[in-house]
């Protein structure tokens, strides 16, 4: 179990990348030092009528500055509150939470879809091997330019206005992308399709998926955020794994989706 900290972080800066997609850098006391790609933070609202922390994935880590970047969708009252934070404001956070992406020395296909794109940026930045990066959007792009320095970026949009018309798998096929390992985060239908693709007989490569689910505690106590698992889990003793603790990143073959 990695160390977890409950801290008061300070907003370094915040900007809107697209309407409804915000990027916020926060300065932490200890969290940034131990955090890694694929982990997440719990962010607490100041408005006490919103009692549950919001789990938000880590987009980038700057250990020299003890800073963490969070890129999130403003989707409800909690994230709306976060979007109004300014430089110098504070926010309570717990982290780093979850297990992160296991790093293997291979040729990686790093796949992000929609608001599942941000956690792939720190992975793309720190992954040591060769990498193809596939980003799927509905329409407007964000963060795509920042991936370019870390690998070959391939874009898919549903409307077809940028890159491949279709989804990330369409882009993989159109560009004949191949690799030895897949890392992916995005909406459930995309992850299911990637799992099927990676486990198919003709592809058959290791695939790591970052899942999400409604959470309460975020640290493994409440048993709110379960995914069905292929085998009996050591902690729960049933075919359920805690997404916040055993995940959010799972080997595709371990989970039933």
């Amino acid at each position: 179990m990695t160390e977890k900290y409950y801290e008061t972080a300070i907003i370094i800066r915040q900007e809107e990348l697209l309407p409804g997609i915000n990027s916020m850098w926060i300065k932490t006391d200890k969290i940034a030092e131990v955090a890694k790609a694929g982990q997440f933070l719990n962010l607490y609202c100041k408005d006490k009528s919103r009692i549950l922390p919001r789990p938000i994935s880590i987009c980038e880590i700057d250990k020299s500055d003890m800073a963490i970047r969070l890129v999130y969708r403003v989707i409800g009252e909690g994230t709306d509150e976060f979007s109004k934070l300014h430089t110098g404001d504070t926010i309570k956070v717990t982290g780093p939470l979850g297990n992160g992406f296991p790093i293997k020395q291979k040729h990686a296909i790093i796949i992000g879809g929609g608001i599942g794109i941000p956690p792939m940026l720190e992975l793309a930045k720190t992954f040591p091997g060769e990498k193809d990066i596939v980003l799927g959007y509905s329409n407007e792009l964000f963060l795509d330019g920042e991936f370019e320095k870390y690998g070959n970026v391939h874009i898919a949009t549903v409307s077809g206005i940028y890159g491949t018309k279709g989804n990330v798998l369409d882009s993989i096929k159109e560009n004949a992308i191949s690799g030895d390992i897949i890392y992916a985060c995005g909406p459930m239908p995309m992850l299911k399709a990637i799992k099927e693709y990676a486990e198919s007989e003709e592809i058959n490569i290791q695939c790591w998926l970052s899942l999400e689910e409604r959470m309460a505690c975020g640290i493994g106590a409440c048993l709110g955020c379960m995914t069905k698992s292929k085998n009996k889990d050591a902690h729960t003793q049933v075919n359920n794994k805690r997404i916040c603790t055993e995940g959010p990143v799972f080997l595709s073959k371990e989970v039933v989706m």
Partner: protein
Amino acid sequence: MNTSVNIAGVTLNNPVMTASGTFGSGMEYSQFVDLSRLGAVVTKGVAIVPWEGNPVPRIAETASGMLNAIGLQNPGLDTFIERDIPFLQKYDTKIIVNVCGHTTKEYVTAVERLNEQPVDLLEINISCPNVKKGGITFGKDPKAVEKITSTLKEVSKIPLIMKLSPNCADISEMAKAAESGGADAISLINTLTGMKIDINKRTFALANKTGGLSGPAIKPVALRMVYEAAHSVNIPVIGMGGISSAEDAIEFILAGATAVSIGTANFMNPNVTIEVIEGIEKYLKENNINDISDIRGIVE
């Protein structure tokens, strides 16, 4: 200053414990909280065999509260006895094991097995609203409460706390039924059955459709019920329901609670239990109260 309280012959260093289901067996929160500071750790409900619980989503936030429908997922007594009890024994706190079952026989078997374990108290869950068999089906009317209580009292070597549901007509009757069944203490309230609908997806927010409402939203209801229960019985009452500060905890003690449990507030602040303990100490000191029992139930 004395903050210790006595429940069925077991002395807790202070009246603050955790509410079952919100704190696991303490392992996860021990990264934030020194468990030895707590009056007691009340574990997540455990049954004789592992339970899978309900489908997800199991959690939904509501105004100043949350709904849960975990469905009593638990690893079963074998794992619990092997892993969780030895873990808790490392701390200078009392161990209260919350027990659940589908049938009377399952409750009895669980209690018999726990008789041989180093635990201080058992809390019997007859109030979970999220399971089809067990839980609330044993706690929905006074007769059922009295029956399961007396049955378990016959087999238990460990003092029993009966955990009561607010989803009833008259909490005083439920409290009296537990007392006449032989309960050593009662704890209340469990969650209130509630619902949330996602208007965009046009479906229930929880896969189980309904869930248990907890958090600050339920505190006034919980406080009223704890007051009524405390005035109906002579056994200790453990108060809970939306407590998230020392002020909240003191309200429950003034209403008659011997001890208090912190549940959902752990999700709002992982250090909350310690803050509540320190806040109670400060309140006693500032008001020159030497013993916490001097203020118990004094608001008549």
